[in-house]
Structures are given as C-alpha cells and as structure tokens.
C-alpha cells in the first residue's frame, strides 16, 4: 500500500498534464470551426469543445477510457467479446502472434546461447552479427518476409508477424542466456570436473539451473519486444486484424480515438504479459530455492 501512494500521485500528475495538453492542442480546431461557423466562444464553451471532439489531436483521458470501455468491457457484457469490432478479439489476435513469435524467439535465443557457450567458432562467428541484426530495421523487411513466406507457400499473416516478433525477441534471450550459462564460477565448473561429469550433466545440473534468473530477466524484456514486433509487423503490412491493424486503420480513417484505444490495449497487454512472466519467475525461482 505504501508503495502505491507515490505511483498514484505520479499517475494523477500525468493525468493533469494530459488534460491540460488536450485543452491546449484541441483548442485551435475548436476555434477554427467556430470561426468557420462565424460564432464567438466563451472560455468554458471552448473548454468543453476541446474535451469531446470526434477527431481530437489529443483525446482527453476520459474519451480514451470511454472508447476503451466501449470496445472491450461493454461488448464483453453483451456477449460480443469475440466480435471483430471488439478490442478483446484484436488483442487476442495480437497475443496469438506475440506468443508464437515469443516461443520461436526464445527457442532460437536459447539454442543460440547453448551453441555459443559450447562452441567457440559459433561464438566468434555469430555474436557480432547478433548485434548487427538488431540494427536492421525489421519494418523494412516486413513486406519481404510476407512475400517470401507467400512464395514458400506459407499462408496467412500470422507467420510473418511471428517471424518479425521472434526477430526482435531472440536477442535479449540470447544475450541473457549466454550470460546465464556462463555465470557458474570456475570453481563450480571444476567441482563437476572432479566428479568427472559429462558435458550433458554439467549442462543440466549446473549451467541451466544457474542461468534461470538471467533467463527470466531476459524473458520479461523479450515478451515486451515480441509484442512490439507483432505490432510493428501489423502496422505496415496491412494486417487485417490485431491491435496494430486497429492503429493503422484508425490512422487511415482519421479516428484518433481508435488509435489511442488500441495503444492502451497494447499497453495493458504488455503490462499483463510482463507481470505474468514476473509471477512465473517468482514461483519458479522460489521453488528452485533462489526466490529469497
């Protein structure tokens, strides 16, 4: 509870600044409209006019909340949670691609880390390129990934999205796991040598468990990156469903409220995913006796 007070204070502060911003940014349009209509506006009229526009430059928080509620809770209450007009449905699509991308990326990251840990050639050849790979703007690759997967007979947009999201999230896992797998001290490794332990035994009994805290730390980064990847994959590729598609369509049809609602849905999704992994981390590390 004590910890919540400063957080809530800062949140309130942010909301206040936001309202102020909404008023400032939406005023010109309200004034211009009044002028076109040849009307005068009082200050209070102007303020209300900035809080309820259809196409605000910056929607007021309550507008976003309202839109978010309309497209989620309200629809869910009417049993239409999975309707395509519902953000829950679109969040589900994004979540699906995120999770498959995450699974792919984490697998690649871990396998890569194992290869790097056990083979010097792989380490020397691959490690620099892993860094370079993160400087390539994947957005640019998105259309090609779609066409290429089309050309290789993979249908649907889920796969390319998942590839992009895997591309973004393998890196933190790779780096974290390389660190984690190398975290055992040389005396811990030597101990196993005195037992004449095999590579497999030293992997499963020492390196892997020792890397768990590192793994979970990077998983939290990775799941966030995977979500970014999915949304980035949805943005320019003309995805037809998913939160990124909602942002895109909102942009094309000039409905900023839809963009903001999708953004917040994405934020909530990100928060939920990170929290979830944090929870799993707590449980697993505790059960491993490392959860202090």
């Amino acid at each position, binding site marked *: 509870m004590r910890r919540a007070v400063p957080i809530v204070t800062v949140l309130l502060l942010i909301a206040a600044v936001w309202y102020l911003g909404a008023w400032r940014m939406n005023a010109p349009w309200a004034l211009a409209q009044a002028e076109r209509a040849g009307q005068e506006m009082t200050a209070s009229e102007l303020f209300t006019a900035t809080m309820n526009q259809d196409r605000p430059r*910056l929607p007021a928080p309550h507008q976003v909340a309202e839109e978010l509620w309309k497209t989620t809770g309200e629809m869910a209450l009417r049993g239409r949670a999975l309707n395509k007009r519902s953000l829950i449905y679109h969040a589900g699509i994004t979540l699906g691609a995120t999770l498959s991308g995450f699974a792919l990326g984490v697998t690649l990251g871990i396998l890569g880390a194992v290869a790097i840990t056990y083979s010097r*050639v792989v380490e020397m050849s691959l490690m620099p390129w892993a860094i370079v790979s993160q400087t390539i*703007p994947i957005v640019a*690759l998105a259309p090609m990934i779609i066409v290429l997967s089309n050309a290789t007979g993979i249908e649907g947009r889920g796969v390319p999205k998942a590839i992009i999201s895997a591309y973004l999230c393998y890196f933190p896992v790779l780096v974290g796991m390389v660190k984690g797998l190398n975290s055992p001290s040389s005396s811990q490794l030597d101990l196993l040598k005195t037992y004449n332990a095999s590579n497999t035994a030293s992997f499963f009994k020492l390196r892997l468990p020792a890397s768990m805290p590192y793994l979970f730390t990077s998983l939290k980064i990775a799941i*966030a990156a995977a979500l970014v990847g999915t949304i*980035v994959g949805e943005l320019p590729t003309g995805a037809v469903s998913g939160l990124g598609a909602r942002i895109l369509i909102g942009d094309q049809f000039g409905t900023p409220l839809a963009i903001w609602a999708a953004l917040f849905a994405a934020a909530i999704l990100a928060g939920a995913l990170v929290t979830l992994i944090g929870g799993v981390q707590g449980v697993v590390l505790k059960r491993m006796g490392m959860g202090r």
Partner: protein
Amino acid sequence: MTVVAGALAFWLAAWGLNVLLARSRWRRARVVRIAVPVIFGLAVLVLWQGLVRGLGVNPVILPAPTDIAATFATSTDTLWQDFVQTALKGALSGYLIGCGAAFVTALAIDRSAFLTAGLLPIGNFVAALPIIGVAPILVSWFGFDWQSKAAVVVAMVFFPVLVNVVQGLREADAMQKDLMRTYAASSWQTLFKLRLPAAMPFVFNGLKIATTLALIGAIVAEYFGSPVRGMGFRISTGVGRLAIDLVWAEIAVAALVGTVFYGIVAMIEKLVTFWHPSQRVG
C-alpha cells in the same frame, strides 16, 4: 544447380576455415576476432547470391547481393540525402534530445525519493510498451519533416534511458555512500564524485539500447508521412515502385549506420567505464 552447390561448398569451406581459426593459436588476436565474423558474413552473402541466382529467384522478390551492391554504387547521392534526413536529422537529434531529457529528468527525480518511487515503476512499465505505435500520432502533431521523426525517437529512447540512469544512480553501494558521509560531503559532491561515476555502466547500457531504437524509430515514423526523402520514405515507397534493390541498399545503410552508431557508443563506454570489471578483460 551448380551455382547453388558452389555456394554451398563455399559456405562449408568458409565455416571450416573459421573452425580452424577459432582453434588456432591466434584466436585471441584482434585480426582473427574480426576476420572470423567477416568470413562468416561473406559466406552468408555468397550463399544468398548462389541461392538467388541458382534458383532463379525473381529480383522483384529478392535481389542478389551483387545487384544490391550495384544499386548502392549508382545511388550514393540518394542514399546520402536519405541518410542525412533520417539518421542525422531524425534519429541523431531525437537520440540526443531524448537521452539528454532522460538524464536531466533522472537527476531531477533523484532528488526526491517520493518521485523516484512513483516514477520508476511507471518508467519500467512504459519502457516495455510498444511506443512505436505513437508514430502516427506524433507525425500528425509535429508535421511531416524530421521534427516528428525526432519526436518519435525521443519517445522511444526516453524511458529506457531514464530507467537505467535512475537505476544506475542507486548503484553506489551503501558502504561507498557511508564513506562520503564520514567526509561530511554535500549531496552534489556525492553525486559528482560517487554516484555519477558509479552509474556510468548502467547509463551506457541505456544509451546502447537507445541506439538500436533510434534509427528504427526514425525509419518507422517516416511510414506515416514524410518529405520526399529519407530512408523510411525510400523503403516504404520502394516496394510500391518495385525498386527492391534500392530498398535493400537502404537496409544495408541502416544496418551499417546502426552498427557504427552502436560501435561509437560502445567505444565511448570503454573509455568512460574502463574501470568496470566487464571492460577489464585481459
């Protein structure tokens, strides 16, 4: 088919060479440390070339590296102009503003335990969000030119850097802080002589993450409107004109610029945090 086989053979040979190099006596030498990844990269390019040519892949779908290189050579003017627009004006200015603002904010909230307690969890949360989604909004706020790109970059780098700096400022251990107290040092003295230097490894961690975000942010923002130049402009319109080789040339520039940018920051890090165990190998 022979082309494909040849490329595969080259790839295997290169890998074999790398295996030899990595096991050799000189594996710790700088040249080898550089040569091995370069050989690997070359092998990948040769494989790519072989597959594209050997399988007769339409250049509209995937051009061969040599085609890309040729386009690169003939369009240096365009590429340079785009680099200036996106990398220098958009990404770099946004990076500097964003990192600077994050740094100043971190110092400001550091003075108040209350604000730190309030902002850090929120910052951590925001740092994990798909900020890239605000690109269309910021483009409509800040116009089509580089300012909106810089704004997107600022939004993307701000929180990762903020979180790292705040975290870093807490890094000085209790004993080191106690030492300063026994000297009756002022809080500014403690900041400049202890906490800032101790924070540097974290600060650079944030700055390095920010480098990779910056260029990508600037490029994506150009998807939502731009003048008729810029890397993102070229990439986003190139596909429609079927100028795929130019798109790849831009991608190559982006990777190159991003790597150099990262390299520069990593080099500065080496200079500043020379004392940190992670920098002291050997």
